[in-house]
């Protein structure tokens, strides 16, 4: 009995949902006979089964509902919104009773006479409004053309005959009984034509089919699915072996096994897949009710309802979806007056669209309503303390709109019974993220809002292309591969470069290319250059509107794979959508084109960040930024360098012209005597021929440095990695990839003229770098990007550190600065702690420190002073900041 009851409950819940849906449909199209028949049949089945199971309350309510429906069906009564509302109320009552039944295994006690009376009254042509059940006594509105509810023209004999002629249900008696009841009820209800009896009979038969189906827990299906996955993998393995060994007696049975496996796999998959429409079935009813309640006109469009989704995923997105639709109806679509005022159609549209894309399921929910008001969101974010005004000012509209995903954030000015309680979008987002999905939103104020939900296929067998990158193999879902292009020097396609950015010309389109090796962080050799022998395989894929190519080293076969989610520990890697076991038993990662695209974007921005950082380092080094560097050899093979800007001329002199005076070599150069210098004693001037020489001048003094060979001029930065204690040398730098000694021209001038105090100061200054070095510590990349150009433009060399810890690492490296600017509110170590640390230890103890914060209250100001900040400046107060920097540096220099 219990099993039977459970069966009944699940079945009835389902039926009621369908009725809900169909009633709304009927209301729109009252003449749709098939819909009406369907509703009638379903309610009828419910009633019939109730009677059989001995559930009098349910039976009574369903019966009365059926009476009204019967009138509709026979055309005795018009389908009016009032009547539909009444029937829906009755359905709700049935649901209530069912819930009680589910909990206690028996019908809850309660009185349904009111609703039954209303229904009966309506069936008899006396219409009562649902909202005014108390005023039943008032004069009922008479509906014209009322016919007494009597058995129709069909005689009972005829009916009996029809019933016997119809193929009876072939299973247990109970159902038979139910059918009997139902037929009799049908007869009672109204005139019934012969075919309809058969139909009713058929419907009961449908019920019996439902009885034949069994309900299985998802666990069982999961298990089955896993086993099938294993089977598929083993099959693949066998197939691979068979392919290797060639013809064998196993080939044919294997073929059969393979086929069976495929069918089994499809079958099991089917048990888990359900059309997304199942999750939508409640929505029309919800929208209908909302229209009534809110006084709006809303047209709900549902596209792609047959897009199939894994059952589990479906269950999980049901509620978020419902919530979002409610939101769209309540907040999104404006009231009729407002819509007219805004020049829009009276009826608002909410559009639901589901489709597959790139191995994901995309659900789009868009409305043509009011859109999100950025101003309102700002105000709300501010009052909720989610962001400060400064932060808001820095945000894009899109970022601000994303605030609706924050907990406790509701823009509805007033809380309605529908939504606006501020528990909503954050829950929606977390639910979607829980299943590995993502939610995006686009909104234009006044035009409407579109939400985009992306749900990955976490459990599915998909066909995938196996590719190789580096030495590893990867799978890429076939569904996301648009096409495959082989590019080599001699084929039609080849990879071209725009400033070292690879692109592919494909049928009049230029596609950006991403090297998988690079994305995955594999070391790659010089394979970037368009070697004509080189072959590249390019997988053309599409993410949203972005079509691009992924360059891989090799392409293997396609294979059926079972997508398994990666371990939580690896879930942060967005380039992979899962992993799988191949036919040969190896585990392989499944690439996610979406992740690759976003990774590429990140990589690009990171790369530019990195470049920026490198440049910072350079600019804080002894010399200026990138510059022309003269490379030469003088004594030994050691490469030596000097900034070309310091060199006045490169000359070759005839060694015979060299004269010696007071033990010093010199040469007559442009009418003057110019001393000649050897930078060390490891080499000497040639005895004959011509000798290369670098000429340096300062004021009216000139000096020639004799070298063995002038090697090259390179555009690079001189970043002294190792400072040198050797005289005449600034240190060693990597120039053009080679360790190079950078010579100190100032030293040779001094040595040669012994009077650098008088004449040389121009050069040492130039070498020392005129610019002051400033370190900025701030966790906000945005702010760093803002401040850096400002300070650079004001003549400072700027180094940035995004955390205090990072800054301290620079200190450990021994980098010294003229000034440090630090944010206060930072993760890990805040500015106060940072200042204390700086003042306590290390080489920055004396370095001026300026605090920079959005919050410059007196208390914080004092705290800043206390921990060692020399000044405290409010963020975004540029002038004050620049002034403070100048002041601090000057103070420091005069003090020192």
């Amino acid at each position: 009995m219990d099993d039977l009851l459970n069966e009944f409950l699940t079945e009835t819940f389902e039926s009621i949902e369908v009725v809900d849906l169909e009633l709304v449909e009927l209301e729109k199209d009252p003449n749709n006979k098939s819909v009406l028949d369907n509703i009638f049949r379903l309610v009828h089945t419910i009633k019939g089964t109730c009677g059989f199971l001995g559930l009098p309350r349910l039976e009574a309510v369903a019966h009365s509902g059926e009476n009204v429906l019967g009138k509709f069906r026979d055309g005795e009564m018009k389908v009016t919104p009032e009547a539909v509302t009444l029937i829906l109320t009755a359905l709700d009552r049935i649901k209530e009773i069912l819930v009680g039944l589910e909990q206690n295994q028996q019908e809850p006690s309660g009185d349904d006479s009111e609703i039954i009376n209303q229904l009966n009254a309506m069936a008899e042509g006396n219409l009562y409004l649902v909202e005014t059940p108390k005023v039943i006594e008032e004069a009922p509105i008479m509906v014209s053309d009322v016919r007494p509810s009597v058995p129709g023209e069909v005689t009972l004999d005829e009916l009996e005959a029809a019933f016997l002629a119809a193929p009876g249900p072939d299973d247990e008696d109970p159902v038979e009984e139910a059918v009997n009841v139902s037929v009799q009820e049908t007869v009672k209800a109204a005139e019934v034509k012969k075919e309809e009896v058969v139909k009713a009979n058929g419907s009961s038969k449908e019920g019996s089919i439902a009885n034949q189906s069994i309900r299985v827990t998802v666990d069982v299906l999961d298990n089955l699915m896993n086993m099938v996955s294993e089977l598929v993998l083993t099959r693949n393995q066998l197939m691979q072996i068979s392919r290797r060994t060639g013809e064998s007696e196993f080939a044919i049975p294997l073929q059969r096994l393979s086929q069976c496996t495929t069918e089994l796999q499809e079958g099991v998959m089917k048990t888990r897949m359900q059309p997304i429409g199942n999750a939508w079935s409640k929505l029309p009813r919800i929208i209908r009710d909302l229209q009534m309640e809110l006084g709006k006109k809303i047209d709900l469009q549902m596209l792609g309802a047959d897009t199939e989704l894994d059952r589990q995923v479906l269950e999980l997105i049901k509620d978020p979806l419902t919530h979002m639709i409610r939101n769209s109806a309540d907040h999104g679509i404006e009231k009729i007056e407002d819509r007219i005022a805004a020049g829009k159609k009276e009826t608002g549209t909410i559009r639901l669209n589901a489709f597959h894309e790139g191995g994901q399921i995309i659900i789009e929910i868009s409305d043509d309503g009011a859109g999100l008001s950025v101003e309102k969101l700002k105000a709300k974010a501010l009052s909720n303390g989610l962001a400060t005004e400064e932060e808001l000012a820095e945000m894009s509209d899109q970022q601000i709109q994303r605030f609706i995903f924050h907990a406790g954030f509701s823009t509805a000015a007033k809380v309605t019974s529908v939504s606006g309680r501020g528990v909503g979008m954050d829950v929606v987002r977390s639910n979607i993220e829980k299943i590995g999905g993502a939610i995006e939103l686009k909104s234009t104020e006044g035009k409407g809002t579109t939400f985009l939900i992306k749900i990955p296929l976490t459990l599915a067998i998909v066909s995938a292309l196996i590719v190789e990158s580096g030495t590893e193999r990867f799978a890429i879902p076939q569904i996301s591969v648009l096409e495959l292009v082989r590019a080599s020097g001699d084929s039609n396609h080849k990879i071209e470069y725009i400033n070292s950015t690879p692109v592919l010309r494909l049928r009049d389109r230029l596609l950006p290319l991403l090297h998988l090796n690079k994305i995955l962080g594999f070391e790659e050799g010089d394979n970037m250059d368009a070697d004509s022998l080189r072959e590249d395989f390019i997988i053309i894929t599409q993410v949203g509107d972005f079509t691009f190519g992924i360059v891989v080293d090799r392409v293997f076969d396609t294979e059926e794979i079972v997508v398994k989610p990666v371990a939580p520990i690896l879930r942060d890697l967005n380039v992979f959508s899962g992993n799988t076991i191949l036919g040969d038993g190896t585990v392989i990662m499944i690439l996610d084109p979406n992740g690759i695209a976003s990774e590429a974007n990140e990589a690009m921005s990171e790369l530019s960040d990195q470049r920026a950082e490198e440049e910072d380092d350079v600019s804080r080094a002894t010399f200026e930024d990138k510059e022309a560097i003269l490379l030469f050899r003088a004594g030994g093979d050691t490469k030596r360098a000097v900034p070309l800007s310091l060199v006045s001329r490169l000359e070759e002199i005839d060694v015979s012209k060299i004269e010696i005076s007071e033990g010093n070599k010199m040469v007559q150069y442009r009418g003057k005597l110019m001393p000649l210098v050897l930078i060390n004693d490891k080499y000497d001037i040639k005895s004959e021929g011509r000798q290369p020489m670098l000429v340096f001048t300062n004021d009216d003094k000139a000096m020639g440095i004799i070298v063995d060979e002038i090697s090259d001029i390179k555009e690079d930065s001189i970043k002294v990695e190792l400072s040198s204690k050797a005289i005449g040398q600034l240190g060693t730098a990597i120039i053009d990839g080679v360790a190079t000694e950078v010579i100190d021209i100032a030293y040779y001038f001094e040595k040669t003229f012994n009077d650098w105090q008088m004449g040389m100061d121009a050069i040492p200054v130039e070498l020392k770098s005129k610019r002051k070095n400033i370190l900025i510590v701030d966790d906000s990349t945005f702010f760093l990007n803002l401040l850096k150009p400002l300070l650079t433009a004001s003549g400072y060399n700027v180094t940035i550190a995004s955390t205090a810890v990072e800054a301290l690492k620079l200190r450990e490296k021994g980098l010294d600065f003229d000034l440090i600017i630090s944010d206060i509110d930072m993760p890990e170590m805040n500015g106060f702690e940072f200042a204390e640390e700086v003042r306590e230890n290390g080489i920055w103890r004396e370095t001026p420190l300026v605090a920079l914060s959005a919050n410059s209250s007196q208390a914080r100001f004092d705290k800043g002073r206390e921990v060692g900040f020399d000044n405290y400046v409010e963020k975004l107060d540029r002038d004050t900041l620049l002034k403070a920097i100048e002041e601090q540096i000057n103070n420091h220099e005069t003090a020192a």
Partner: protein
Amino acid sequence: MEKLNKNDFVTIWLDGQMCGIPVLEVHDVLSRQTITKVPKSPVAVAGVLNLRGQIVTAIDLRKRLKLKDRDEGMEEMNIVVEYQKEPYSLIIDSVGDVLSLSEEAFERNPVTLDPHWQSVSNGIFRLENELLVILDIEKLLTLDESKVAA
């Protein structure tokens, strides 16, 4: 330390140090397995492997504990454990006996212990000749480095 009331431990070796893993947490002990590397994964993640049709994430405990890498050709073993219903394989040098230890021999970690070890160890057992560092699976599998600061 209620976690340790079942004081049976599988002993493992890591760069000459004996460590213990609660025996109840060990599902499998395997010899060297073919491991697929996972690009961009945290350093301690050696890759993924196929254990009887199940995909197992392998964590190299030497890397996890910031020990020096195994020499080429050196023996390695896998200990399969489960954490939050996901299987993980801990790659270690070798496996020793299962020891039943009494609570009395248990000590807290010395405060001077390397922070990396502190962060994954629940304490230490004094054995006759050696010290047994008890490793905590949960802590081992919580990779703080998994998120690289931007």
